């Protein structure tokens, strides 16, 4: 069934949108990621203008993360204090990111920076996670006892000042790395047009040693707020949020996210991390291949944003 999108100004198949939203929503609920880094390329690939894709995905991410937040909230698996501190950093980082975004656009190299960043971050983070989860699985198989959480073990992060107690996460750490982490992810998020959950989750687990089950709900809550702000900003500045497209993606997405969240409860932490690592890595490789191989069509046409409007 074809439906005409009022902002994107073209018709698309509604069931294709449900399908894409559902698949990405499932992964979103499973891993506690927004899924923007998957959905945006999917939409662009299916012919929706990049500006509309980026802006509308932020709206869809709001819905799928809200749905996930509800599920995790009920299980009391959200650390609100931690999410709040991450958000403080996120706002600062986003502001710097938006400023750099404009600068790069005037220099005409935004596309390249986005592609290179995708390749770099997705490959690096995916690779690290893959390595770690495989090692952890191998250790478990060899019979060594592996504690997912080692409360006694500290790294350099725990030596920093301005300590704060996060009761829900059973943590007592400095707020500096938390705000810094939120800032870096907010910065990258606004440059790449993504929520950054796939970077947030491993960072919280490995750097701050937040328990895995708390990480996902907390990360989703932080994504919810960041993406709600991003949706509003996109609607104000570029007018490229397509509410019909967003709704179609949402309906698929929220349903998928529910199943994902349920499935996530059944899988072990290292299995989840292995799957997420493979997913992140494959998107990174896809971008790398696009950059390295000679494209079939060297030319591209884009109408100016300030095109003639009625």
């Amino acid at each position, binding site marked *: 069934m*074809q*439906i*005409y999108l*009022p*902002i994107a100004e*073209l*018709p698309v198949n509604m069931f294709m949108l449900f399908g894409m939203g559902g698949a990405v929503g499932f992964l979103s609920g499973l891993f506690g990621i927004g899924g923007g880094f998957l959905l945006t390329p999917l939409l662009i690939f299916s012919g929706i203008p990049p500006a509309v894709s980026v802006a509308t995905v932020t*709206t*869809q991410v*709001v*819905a799928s*993360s*809200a*749905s996930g*937040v*509800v*599920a995790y909230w*009920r299980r009391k698996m959200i650390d609100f204090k931690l999410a709040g501190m991450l958000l403080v950093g996120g706002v600062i980082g986003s502001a710097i990111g938006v400023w750099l975004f404009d600068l790069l656009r005037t220099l*005409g*190299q935004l*596309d*390249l920076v986005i592609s*290179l960043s995708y390749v770099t971050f997705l490959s690096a983070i995916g690779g690290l996670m893959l390595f770690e989860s495989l090692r952890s699985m191998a250790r478990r198989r060899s019979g060594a006892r592996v504690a997912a959480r080692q409360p006694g073990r500290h790294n350099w992060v725990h030596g920093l000042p301005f300590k704060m107690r996060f009761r829900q996460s059973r943590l007592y750490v400095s707020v500096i790395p938390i705000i810094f982490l939120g800032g870096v992810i907010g910065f990258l998020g606004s440059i790449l047009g993504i929520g950054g959950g796939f970077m947030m989750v491993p960072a919280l687990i490995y750097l701050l040693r937040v328990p895995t089950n708390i990480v996902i709900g907390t990360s989703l809550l932080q994504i919810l707020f960041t993406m*709600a702000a991003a*949706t*509003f*900003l*996109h*609607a*104000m500045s570029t*007018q490229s*949020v397509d*509410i*019909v497209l*967003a*709704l179609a993606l*949402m*309906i698929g997405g*929220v*349903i998928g*996210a*529910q199943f994902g969240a*349920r499935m996530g409860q059944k899988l072990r932490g290292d299995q989840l991390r292995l799957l997420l690592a493979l997913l992140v890595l494959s998107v990174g490789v896809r971008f790398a291949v*696009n*950059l*390295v*191989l*000679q*494209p079939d*069509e*060297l*030319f*591209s*046409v*884009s*109408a*100016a944003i300030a*095109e*003639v409007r*009625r």
Partner: protein
Amino acid sequence: MRRPLRQAIVLLGLGCLLAAAPAARAENLIAALSADRVNIESNFTGTRIVVFGEIARDALTVARPEPYDLAVVVSGPEQVVTTRRKGRFMGIWVNRDSETFERVPSFLAVHTTRAPHEMASRTVLERHRIGLRNLNLPIAIASDVPIGDRDNFRQAFLRLRVQNGLYQEQTDSIEFLSDSLFRTSVSLPANVPVGEYTVSTYLLRGGALLAQAEQPLTIAKSGFEQFTYRLAYEYSALYGLLAVALAIFTGWLAGVIFRRD
């Protein structure tokens, strides 16, 4: 004796009128559209409009040996378009050169009775955008592309536009229902840009433009599509808040519906 005299007077009159109305005493062209407004609604997947008309002649029309040629040109609102070309830079493919064309039609359909270059000289064809090869693409002043390379960008632009259906050229597509009645059907694809269009019909013979007719065509969103579009552009803040509220509500609703415990 009266007939040659009358012809002489007519010729004299024609001569005087030539600057003001060159086609006054030659063939007249009457053209019309099947619809002068195309509404885009949620089920829009493209449509067709029929351009039909008549070549009007009277007893005074000079008899000519060559056949009539017709061209129907449908052009959409003009826009500024950048064509970019990727090049290899340190092992990766990036956008390197670009050429910006100003005031190019966002949509162009050219229907003719035969290949445009057989119909008239390039000057006539270029002036009236008859044929995609004769489309003038004005280059923005600040262009770094060397002259010899410019045609590549031009060709690429036309090729990409033809690929996504926004530019069309069809020869032999105008059907004659009688000696003077003609008809052609122009397809408007699903991704047709909205705005004010012009449908121009040209009558040519032996390389000369005898008559032309012009009709406006409006392609606009209607109903919910129009409402959404206006809300997004004129009340952006409200639209943004609505989008966020809708997203949170949908997410929450799903959470409630799927509640198991």
